């Protein structure tokens, strides 16, 4: 009888960063980082760019406490990689129509509450264009965001990547 398969996921408290065995070239060209390590070194809801493809980004956010309200002129997506995150949504009276990337929606944006979703590890939510959304997490967690580079995107490749 063989042992059952165990699927290994990462978390803030338990991750094992991989490696590059270089034959030739420059290890930096692979921009290799680990999202849990990045989140462990980030401020709450700092949007750290871990993937950049001609303006499109993957950002890692440390989910801890309550975030500001964000909004965006296009669809974005969030995937919970660790912990439990609540996302509240507002249908904005004056939705953002132009621009790219996430922007702050202000202290108390005007709009109608649309409800909320509760994400656990592996869960993915649509962050629809023109809505405001806010993250909340009772204990530290990790979010991935699929979006476009915006005014809140933080690039610090030299701090996060294998060299």
């Amino acid at each position, binding site marked *: 009888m063989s042992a*059952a*398969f165990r*699927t*290994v*996921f*990462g978390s803030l408290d338990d*991750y*094992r*960063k*991989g*490696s*590059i*065995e270089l*034959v*030739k070239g*420059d290890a930096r*060209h*692979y*921009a*290799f*980082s*680990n*999202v*849990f*390590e990045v989140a462990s070194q980030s401020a709450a809801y700092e949007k750290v760019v*871990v*993937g*950049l*493809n*001609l303006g*499109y980004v*993957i950002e890692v956010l440390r989910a801890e406490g309550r975030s500001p309200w964000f909004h965006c002129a*296009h*669809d974005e*997506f969030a*995937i919970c*990689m660790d912990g439990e995150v609540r996302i509240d*949504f507002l*249908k904005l009276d004056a939705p953002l129509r132009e621009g790219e990337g996430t922007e702050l929606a202000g202290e108390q944006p005007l709009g*109608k*509450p649309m*409800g*909320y*979703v*509760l994400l*656990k*590890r*592996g*869960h*993915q*939510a*649509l962050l*629809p264009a023109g809505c405001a959304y806010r993250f909340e997490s009772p204990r530290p967690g990790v979010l*991935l965001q*699929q*979006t*476009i580079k915006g005014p809140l995107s933080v*690039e610090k*490749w030299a701090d996060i*990547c294998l060299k």
Partner: protein
Amino acid sequence: MAMLETPEPTRTFALDEVEASQPDSVTGYRSFRLGAFTLSRDEYFARVEWPAKGQLRSHLIPADAFLRAMMRDVAWGFFYGWVNFDAVIGTRNHYGKVDLYAGTFNGVLKEAGVDYIEQFETPKIMATFKAILRDWTNAGFDPFAAPEETGSAFGRKHGDNIEAIERFRIATRRMPGLPDDSPLRDDLPVNRQFADVPQDEPEVHAAEGFEGELHAINLFKYLSRSDVTWNPSVSSVCKASLFCPTTEEFILPVFHGNDRIEWFLQLSDEIIWDVGDKDDGTPRARLTMRAGDIAAMPADIRHQGYSTKRSMLLVWENATPNLPQRYESGELKPYPVDF
């Protein structure tokens, strides 16, 4: 397949242009001509022949590896850039036309001048590849599955497995599970190697009047029910930014040389990537990626992954159309960031 969905501008299939022989009297398999190439198979090997330097050249690939590679090339519609079946044979997608080559992206063969490359209209090469897959895939062999999950590709022709090679192509416009978008996989079983992956759905609490406007899914559950290996499929679309997660087991059946940068984010377990020069195949690096690791695959390399346990991988593509020319002209660097 990891492309943006666009209406097909032209015919995509040319069954009448397939040049197939009668079944061989001993093995039962047909052979196929594609321009100056001949493709045939026997009990163990696929054989590819082409002319160079006034001689007929040939190359053998084990039938199982060949069919796994061809399955991906067909399912992906020739994908992005170069799909190397091995160090000699492969295709390059020009999005409407496709090159089939032998040795052209192998440093030694190219240098010796014994390589050959020929371009085909996509419908003709697609129809021929599909006909090869239909004829050469025997009953009990699923070229989309990992070796432990399926039977043998070897032996003389015995039956077929049309169902396995004609799997319904999933096209996602925004996110799976939305109305009028690709379905979730609740009717597919959880793969044996993901039996421990939680199957709970996110809680969605829509306020009155906003029912159906909030959307969330369990992505890891969705992946745990993938019935194929090494098949990037779109799960979220932010303009030209495509998240294309897939489940991986055994070896990526092709050595993919992209015509643009792509990124890998390991969602579970571990994959080792062999990375070589895109043009001549010489080794450059070997990356070990574990859960949470993210890395770019530069536009001037080819890569092939190894995954012992079935693992979850997020492949991230930029589907902007004019990127190959911008990388080839040198306007864009082959790697994503300087630091």
